[in-house]
């Protein structure tokens, strides 16, 4: 991930002075990653949309506190993660989203254009399994795994976003992956 691009810096400055249109442009730059991050953290697309919106609103409210010494996305994603975690906490009583055949998943692939219906079905099943395995991870592990293996952040960036030590990132990532490996064994294609 690069630092904050120049264009975004300008949008940030304009947003700080109350330019909502500039902020909306900023939202468009980051919405894809913010939304996907939220999706993977909460495992539910409508909650994820709420969280993404809330996170952007909170970011706007807090723009005055963003001093630009860290990359904007680090700051923004920290808000997203916090929102997602507190959101989950508030909803802890609710059953997790789980994809099943009778219950069309909001995670049904958007770009599934395979001709082979069997392969498509398999792929769908695999995706649901991966999502379920991620959802089943303990929160702290999930955040690290999602940031690394889905969003592609470096260890140091993750440490920054989550405000945890580098060593903690390493151990959580490794632990999380080990748990995922257990859960996803049938899909790994590693022959004994």
């Amino acid at each position, binding site marked *: 991930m690069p630092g904050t691009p120049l264009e975004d810096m300008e949008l940030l400055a304009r947003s700080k*002075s*109350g330019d*909502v*249109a500039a*902020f*909306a442009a900023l*939202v468009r730059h980051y919405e*894809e990653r913010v*939304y*996907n991050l939220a*999706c*993977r953290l909460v495992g539910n*697309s409508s909650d994820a*949309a709420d969280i*993404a*919106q809330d996170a952007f*609103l*909170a970011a706007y409210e*807090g723009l*005055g*506190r*963003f*001093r630009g010494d860290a990359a904007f996305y680090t*700051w923004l994603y920290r*808000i997203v993660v*916090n929102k997602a*975690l*507190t*959101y989950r906490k508030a909803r*802890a009583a609710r059953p997790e989203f789980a994809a099943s055949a009778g219950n069309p998943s909001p*995670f049904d*692939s958007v770009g599934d254009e395979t001709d082979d219906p069997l392969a498509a079905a398999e792929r769908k099943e695999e*995706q649901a399994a*991966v999502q379920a395995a991620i959802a089943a991870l*303990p929160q*702290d592990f999930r955040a690290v795994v999602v940031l*690394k293996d*889905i969003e592609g952040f470096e*260890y140091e960036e993750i440490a920054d*976003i*989550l405000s945890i*030590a*580098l*060593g*903690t990132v*390493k*151990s959580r*990532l*490794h*632990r999380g*992956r*080990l748990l*995922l*490996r257990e859960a*996803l*064994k049938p*899909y*790994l294609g*590693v022959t*004994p």
Partner: protein
Amino acid sequence: MKCQQCADLLSEYIDGRLADAESLQVTEHLRSCSACRRLEKELRATVALVGSLDRQAVPVDMAETVAARLERRMLLAEPQPPKRRLIMAPWRLAGVGAAVAAVLLVALYVWGPRVSTVPRTAARPTTGDEGALGAAQIQKNGEAAVDRNGAWQAAPAQPSMKPETREEQAVAKALDGQPPQASVSKPAAAPIPVGTAGGDGKGTGGEDVERKETAQEGPTSAYGMALNRAREIASTPPAGTVEEPRSSTGEEGVGRTSARAFKDGDVNAQATVPAETLAVPGRIGKRTAGGKLEAAEETVTAEVPADARAFAHKVTEAEKAAPAAEAAFNFDGKIADAADEFLKLVPVAVQGGLSRDLGVDASKPASSGAGLLMDTAKPGRVPLEAVKSGASEAAAAAGPLEAIKSAADAHKVSVVELGADKAVFEYAAERAEIVRIVAQLRKVGSLTFISDAGKWPMAEDLGEKQHMLAYQQQDKLSAESARSETRIARGVDRSPAPVTVRFVFTRRPAPAEGQPPAQTR
């Protein structure tokens, strides 16, 4: 290299994060060990599989919705250019955060369910005092007020905009000329007439607090969560009107205590604000290690009636006079007395016992492990001196767990709250101390964790933490991360204020006959 060492390093190996020498060792080992090779393959496959998840398409109108909500908020909120947002200096926010919380709690308690998080300019009843305040603000902000007034007229012209939150809905209703749901028992909503009521331009003492409050939706911090919790508690009917104790599942140990007290008809209990709502450490108002935690300056707007504002002023003054007070504050129903109480009853530093026993660097700020003892079943806190003697002797003798238990016994309190900063906690966790303490405390009561980052450690992860601990001990963390953990534990890497983790321990009452023992998590 042994298998376990190798297995530990595999994630970093896969990610190319190992130093050359170490990486080479792993490669060597993999060449000769089929089990580890298999694990490596599986991990690689796992990473690939997770990474292959399809990206989700963003709802098309995300940016528009955000912008619309922002605009709506701006119309509704007090005018607040960024530079004016912080009426109080950041360092003062620390203590003031607690004072504000206290004020809100008073307001929430007394005016309970009618309080919402909306900047209630529109819905505010025009009692004399309110009017004076409004006028004072308008005087200072003449132009902005007119703008705002214009906004009142403009807003209903956007009927298609769907209010997003209950607060926004309430405000939307107010805009449409209906009384907002949230204040059914109040006089009908009426916008503050521009230029009405002379006022002296100063308002009451609480103005400071009131003015710095801004609308903020959704808790992003323990502070926010505590406030939400406060709202929740405030909306719990007081003694006599409760049929059933509020069903509390999960980790709401404190809530359970209060609910029980309500049911038992303990009138005082309703005046005792449960620990977690008060346990807003002043430090929350500061920045955390990573930088600009948005929780830091989060403030909440509530309708603060005139006498509560006066009280807020008192508390602010008291807080000025006693900067050390980390705001443990007991509201016993008499607003006027509360400020004095506030000064008398301050949290006790269990830190003396806790962090010393855990072998943490004593040169850390004294507040790093502040805790307090309180009893949610009885009015009043245990005064500082009394608790100090009770706790620290025991602590010196037998360690933190005994300190907690004996202090609880000595003062017959049912709730013990401890705070320790994250560094202390992590360090302790490394040494299995906290895990042990937690396990033992959970035998006699329930334990809730609150961290001001709102994300660490999760109570439900504690089992996992222990798991991880065992894992780390067994497999030995890499030397580097062990070093970094230690550095953090010593506070070297955390130059700004540490993240505070608070524990709320609720002692389970002795089971009455025929009654199943209270549930533990």
